[in-house]
Structures are given as C-alpha cells and as structure tokens.
C-alpha cells in the first residue's frame, strides 16, 4: 500500500493561484492604487500625455479643415465611398468591446480575475467609442446636420428609416456608449469615496466627494448596489454582443459580393473581442511595469487574456476560411470572384495576407506556455493583432468596394493626408484620454480587488 496522503496534500495540486500575490493586505492595495493618482506622475506619463494632446490637436485641425472644405478632402469617391473613415470606425468600436466584455461577461461567469483589469478596460472602451464616434459623425458630410440621425420631429416632416441597419447602428453605438458610462461610473463610486477619504480638505476632496455621491459603504447600500451591478452586467452582456452584430449588419444586409454573408455577426463579435483584448494587454503591460502593479496584475491575468486571444483569434481564422469555403461551395460567380480578388488577384492582396498573418498566424504563438509568459512576445503578438484587426476592416470595407459587379465600376482607393492625419490624431486622442484617466481616477477597481482577497470571506480564519 502506498503512503496515505493527507487531504491538504491531495488538494495542493488543485489549489488556485491567488489573485493578489505576495499576501498583500487592504492597506497596501489602497495605498498602491491611490498612490498612482496622488503622487507625481513618472516621466513616461508625460511622454504619452503630451504627444497625445498634440495629436488630438491634429485631429481637431483635420476635422475643422474637413468641415470647412468638404468631405472631398478625403480620398473617397465612387465606387469606394467607404474607406479609412469607416475602417477606423469599426476598428475603434471593436477595441471598445473588451471593456464591457470583461466587466459584464466575466462578471456573470464569476471570473474573479477580472477585478484587476476591468476598470482600465472599461475606460479604454469609453475612449475607443469616443474615437469611433467621430468617423461616422463626420462621414455624413454636413456635420451640422448630424441631428437628422435622431428621431425628432423636423420641419420637413420626414422620419428616419428604421428598417435601415445604418439607423440601427446609431442606436446600438449610442446605447453602448451610454450604458458603458453608467457601468463605469457605478463601479467607480466606492473607489472615488476612497480617494475622497484620503484627501485633505480642499477642492480635490470636494470634487471626489461630489462624484462619489456621499458613498458610505453601508451594507444597506451595498446590497442594492450589488444588485444594480449584477443587473447592469446581465444587460450589458447581450448588449456587447449586439453592438458589433449591428455594425456587421451595415455590410451583411447589402448585396455587395464579399459583404453579403450570414457569418458576419458572430465573426465580427469574435474579432472585436480579439482586438479588444489585444489592446487591453497593450495598455496594461506597460502600466503594470510603470506603476508597479505586478502583485495585482499577475502573470495569471496575462495568461488568461492571451488564452482568450488565441481562442478568439482562432475563431476569426475559422471565419476567414469559412468565407472562402462558402464562396466556393455556394457557387455564386460574383462571390467566388470577390474572394479570388481579395486573396489572389486583386489590387489589395497584400492587405489580405497582412491580415491573415497578424490575426490568424501570429496569435497561434500563445498555444506555447513560454510565449504567454514572455512579455516581449505577448506585446509583439498584441501589436500584430492591433494591426491585423485594422487590416481586417480595411480588407472587408475598401477592397470589397474596389471590385464590384461590373468591371466598369472598379476603382482603386488611397487615403489622402487628411485621412492619415485623422487616423493618427485619433490614436493621440485615445492615448491622451487614457493618460488623463490614469492621472485622476483609480485605474484598478480598489473595492473589487479587496473583495477577492482570501481574508474578505467572513468565514476565513487565518492560521494561528
């Protein structure tokens, strides 16, 4: 007979890794996260914030130039009426999916590791949606007419076409932004109260006090708060899946070969989650190093997110191949040609293979545990994914329009300097907003991280 083992020895193998390392206590968590806001920002922060602000000004300048001159300053024309603008819109909206996914779906599925990343990911979501909203807003041409999108009575007695996916998109994106803001704000209330209680009396304390709404953390408040949070998570879960589905309807409900496919909604959603997680890692890995958050953003967190990337990346790869297969199997000659020109003979073949490499091949590295642990590899793959997801939208949008039904309608599209400057400028705006967020708000959900410590269980009794 083998030596009998104790229960503790048996359980050692299945014990979960702690979510916060080094046995940190509540005080340390409060000090470390609030310290990021209260202390002087490191030099790196300025290296992000100042160029970000300057590039935001570039964005502002191009928008003013666009409005004062006309959308003709973009390289768009027939047949390619959607180019970088809609590509960038879908790109940013896609990035905006990870935040609510982490907050909502991982909350419902009781993935406690979400607590360390959800705040920053939600902030990222909001800023990405802000960047996204700029493009369709200005794409309408006469920006001052953008209120025509809203169903309000007007002197022409005309109403919007509610059967159009473009109008669904207006509702989907604006609802998504609003609900994300509410979700983010409700999550922030207890943490703003922590910052309030640490401030000396003055303007700062007053502002944190006002935004924390006078939170007192009583259990008679918490029980409703928790229910509210749960309900928001439950509502945001279908919402986050719906937004990119509706975005994909913009294409899928048309008759253009290459767009007219039923696989679009799930394929877009998987792609959005894929690209969003890559952006979360792109932002969080530097933050973790700069602000010393290694005990809260552990290798386990990075490991989990890279696994989600390889999963969704593989789904996206499956969708690419399935598109090709259905084009072949469906036997529609226009569909076959559309994909032939996309992948083999068209003018934008290079972008198709850039997309294939970045989105399908590069993330396969994450099957190997060493690659998931090595942060340089993780960052490189994430940058690949960020690039690849932009190419995916470019491939779907511009290259499809470049090769329509009739060869007489074919065209080629190149962005002008205005489009390029807007694209770069929107990245500046995104980084600038994120830098401001780090400067003024707790970038990790303090109360939620405290809640997942082992000593937070009321039945926990430390070993004497």
């Amino acid at each position: 007979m083998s030596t009998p083992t104790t229960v503790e020895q048996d359980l050692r193998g299945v014990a979960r890794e702690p979510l916060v390392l080094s046995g940190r206590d509540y005080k340390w968590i409060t000090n470390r996260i609030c310290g990021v806001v209260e202390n002087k920002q490191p030099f790196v922060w300025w290296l992000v914030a100042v160029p970000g602000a300057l590039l935001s000004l570039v964005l502002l300048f191009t928008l003013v130039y666009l409005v004062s001159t006309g959308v003709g300053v973009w390289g768009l024309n027939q047949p390619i009426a959607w180019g970088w603008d809609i590509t960038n819109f879908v790109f940013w909206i896609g990035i905006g999916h990870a935040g609510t996914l982490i907050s909502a779906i991982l909350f419902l599925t009781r993935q406690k590791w979400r607590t360390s990343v959800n705040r920053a990911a939600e902030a990222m979501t909001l800023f990405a949606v802000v960047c996204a909203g700029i493009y369709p807003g200005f794409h309408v041409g006469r920006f001052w007419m953008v209120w025509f999108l809203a169903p309000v009575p007007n002197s022409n007695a005309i109403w919007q076409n509610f059967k159009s996916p473009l109008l669904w998109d207006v509702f989907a994106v604006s609802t998504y932004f609003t609900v994300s803001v509410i979700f983010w704000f409700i999550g922030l209330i207890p943490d703003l109260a922590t910052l309030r209680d640490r401030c000396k009396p003055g303007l700062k304390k007053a502002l944190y006090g006002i935004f924390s709404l006078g939170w007192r953390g009583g259990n008679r408040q918490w029980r409703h708060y928790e229910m509210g949070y749960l309900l928001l998570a439950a509502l945001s879960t279908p919402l986050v899946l719906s937004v990119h589905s509706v975005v994909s309807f913009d294409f899928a409900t048309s008759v253009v070969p290459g767009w007219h496919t039923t696989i679009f909604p799930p394929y877009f959603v998987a792609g959005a989650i894929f690209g969003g997680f890559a952006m979360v890692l792109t932002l969080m890995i530097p933050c973790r190093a700069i602000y010393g958050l290694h005990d809260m953003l552990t290798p386990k967190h990075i490991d989990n997110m890279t696994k989600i990337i390889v999963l969704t990346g593989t789904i996206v790869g499956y969708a690419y191949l399935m598109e090709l297969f259905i084009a072949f199997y469906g036997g529609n000659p226009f569909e076959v040609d559309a994909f032939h020109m996309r992948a083999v003979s068209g003018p934008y073949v290079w972008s198709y293979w850039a997309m294939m490499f970045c989105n399908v091949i590069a993330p396969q590295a994450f099957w190997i545990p060493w690659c998931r642990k090595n942060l340089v590899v993780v960052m490189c793959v994430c940058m690949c994914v960020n690039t690849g997801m932009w190419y995916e939208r470019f491939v779907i949008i511009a290259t499809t329009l470049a090769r329509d039904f009739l060869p007489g309608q074919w065209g080629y599209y190149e962005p002008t300097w205005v489009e390029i400057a807007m694209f770069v400028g929107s990245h500046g705006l995104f980084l600038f907003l994120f830098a401001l967020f780090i400067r003024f708000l707790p970038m990790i959900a303090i109360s939620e991280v405290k809640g997942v410590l082992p000593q937070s269980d009321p039945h926990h009794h430390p070993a004497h």
Partner: protein
Amino acid sequence: MSVTTEDKVKRTWGYVAEFDTAASVYEAAKAMKEGGYRRWDVHSPFPIHGMDGAMGLGPSFLSRIVFCGGLAGSLTALLLQFGTQVGLYPTIVQGKPDNLFTIPAFFPVTFELTILFSAFTILFSLLVIIRLPRLHHPLFESKLFTGFSDDKFILSVEARDPKFAREGTREFLQSIGAKQVELVEEEL
C-alpha cells in the same frame, strides 16, 4: 464673531465601532441582530459575502423596478417605430412592408432601447433607494468612520434605534468585539 465648535448645539447621532476583519464584523452583525437592534449598518470597503443574511436583510427589490424600466423602453421603441414607419411617414423600401409585419426590422432598435432604459432605471432607482447623492452625513464627522474606505470595518448604530442606550450600547459594542467605539454627534 466666530462660533467655536464647543458653542454649537449638538445632538447624539449614534455610535461607530471599528472592527479589523470581515470575519469579526460578520459575527458582530449577527450579534447585533440577536440583540434586537434595528437602525444600524455595517460599512465595509467591499460588499461582504453573506452579510445580508447576517443582518437579516432580504434580497434587493431593485430588479423589479428595472423590469418596469426595461418594459417602458421596449414600448417606447415599438411606439416610435410603428408610429413613424406605419403612421406618420410610411415608406416601402428594402422590400419590407409598411404595416405590422415590418416588426423583424424593428427588433434591433427595440432591443437597444430596452437596454438603454433599463440602464438608466438602474442608475436612478439605485440612487433613490440608497438615498444618494448627499453632500454631507453626520458619519463623516467621525474620526473612525473614514477607515471604512480603506481597511477597516465600521459598525454604526443610530441613536434613533429603540434599543439605543448611551452606556448600554457602548458596552454591547465592546462585548461583541469592537476594537474602538466612538460617539458621533451631529450639529443642529
């Protein structure tokens, strides 16, 4: 002429008691309930699992209000779409009719507005139920109290509680494990 703190008329608001761990405040909450107190609360840096049961509180009723909010969102969306597409400005486009059977095309907007109205209902009814925002509260005068947002667990008892007694409650709080007890007063 300036008024010093001592000159102001004050009234006892209640006691706050400090606990070090979630486990100890959990036991204390059970004792408070046993002791028959009614107007008291446990302030913690995070929601403590099982505290509702220990305090004898039922599940939150917020979800029922939100259901009504969501329903209002669905109805608003359907009214808006049928009203404009069938009544005010019917157009036959995209091969879709302009009557009741158009409803599949109205699902996305109906869905989005349901979520939107529900989210607003959550935010505003939550604030009403937990009586926020408020700019000040007597508890913020307490020295011990602000520890709740850091690493302490604070149990507060209001003087309005029928069982409240100036000496008795202090002794009771100490007997159930409070590390420190502080009297909180509010200005009149």
